[in-house]
């Protein structure tokens, strides 16, 4: 690995000023499971960083807290293990626990942060479809203070985000899911673990009786960024939670996707998977919704 200067600030403000000072030649480091790999392979999408601003001593970035009034706050520096094992996440945000719980190995999950997953902006990032279906907001801190962005607006392309080079993702905020909500995330990979999603699908359904009051469908690895499948959501909204509705929505989700053929799979296969998995997950989410109702 080529060398760099290493800074370990203790506060967000300090980190931001270090980034600002460096004027684009610095890069924040969280768990390093993307960044260090990219640096070793000289495969960063940005110029090789001259300065690394490590976030691991910034305690403000840590922690996962839930309250019935404010919902869930996840510090960008929370690890996948922190997220996946947190009781409130498991109970109230099952799709997110599922997304965080499949990232690499135990070793990977102990290092990888949710902030890194989001900021690396891979189309296949496993926590992002869940964040999309829970209407998460990204809290961003820069030299000019804080701003908040709906997570869907955070992604600009593979590896591209709404962040300026001197901004940090500080936390993610997820509202409390309405009563009667069921959600789920699943991905397809050739190996059962240690793999990158060929397709990832997250859904959330809020049922009132048998009717779908509110629906979210989000897809990973089938477009330049993770995306919400809007026509699938429309096909669900207000409809009965039936196999027929799910089939239609699944079809619509496949239409919403714009996959490519790459080393992991062909576009065809990905679109097919979107359909199969969406239908299955909607059924699963509906079951969960009924379980919590």
């Amino acid at each position, binding site marked *: *690995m080529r060398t760099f200067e*290493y800074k370990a600030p203790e506060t967000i403000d300090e980190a931001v000023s270090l980034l600002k000072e460096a004027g684009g030649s610095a890069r924040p480091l969280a*768990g390093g499971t993307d960044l260090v790999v990219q640096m070793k392979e000289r495969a960063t999408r940005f110029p090789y960083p001259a300065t690394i601003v490590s976030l691991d001593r910034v305690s403000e970035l840590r922690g996962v807290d839930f309250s019935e009034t404010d919902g869930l706050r996840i510090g960008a520096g929370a690890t996948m293990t922190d997220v996946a094992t947190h009781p409130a996440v498991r109970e109230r945000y099952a799709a997110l626990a599922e997304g965080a719980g499949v990232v*690499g190995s135990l070793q990977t999950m102990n290092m990888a942060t949710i902030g890194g997953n989001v900021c690396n902006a891979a189309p296949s990032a496993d926590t992002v479809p869940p964040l999309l279906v829970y209407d998460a907001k990204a809290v961003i801190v820069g030299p000019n203070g804080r701003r908040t962005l709906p997570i869907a607006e955070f992604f600009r392309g593979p590896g591209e985000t709404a962040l300026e080079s001197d901004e940090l993702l500080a936390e993610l905020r997820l509202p409390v899911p309405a009563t009667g909500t069921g959600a789920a995330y699943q991905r397809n990979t050739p190996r059962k*673990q*240690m793999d990158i999603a060929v397709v990832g699908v997250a859904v959330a359904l809020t049922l009132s009786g048998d009717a779908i009051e509110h629906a979210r469908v989000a897809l990973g690895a089938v477009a330049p960024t993770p995306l919400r499948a809007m026509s699938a959501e429309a096909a669900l909204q207000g409809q009965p939670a039936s196999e027929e509705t799910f089939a239609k929505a699944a079809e619509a989700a496949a239409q919403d996707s714009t996959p490519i053929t790459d080393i992991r799979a062909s576009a065809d296969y990905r679109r097919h998977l979107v359909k199969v998995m969406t239908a299955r997950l909607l059924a699963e989410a509906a079951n969960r919704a009924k379980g919590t109702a």
Partner: protein
Amino acid sequence: MPRQLISLTINGREREVAVEPHWTLLETVREALDLTGSKEGCGTGDCGACTMSVDGRIVTSCLMLAPQVNGRQVTTIEGLQSNGSLDPVQQAFIDTGGLQCGYCIPGMIVAARNLIDDNPSPTLDQIREGLAGNLCRCTGYTKIYEAVELAAERIRGGA
């Protein structure tokens, strides 16, 4: 780049080491601390041969930078023996034949020990899940599963 001094507790001993910022934890431990038990199989987090425990959680040390472990507790395969006797997990790998070339083994055993510490009675499925980050090319894992079951049993039995 000038070296910087970090201090860490390695296998229970406090040490100061002068490191370059781009050194990984793995390199630091192998080259600067002369503990060569941990192996590099890929350097990119994919094989688990470099597994160490940092503050009680296992990590792939090939992806952690040396300065990141400043002030932390690191345990490597060399830290598992106590008072000159093998850890029950180490003994179980020998007894079941759960090792061949041995290159994956230091990382595998650190991961297995961590798994048992977290879950003293792991089921076969839990073992298979817990070790998925540690590739072994030689054994086909069968005897590794047996080793972890045997070790867990012995540890529960207070052996």
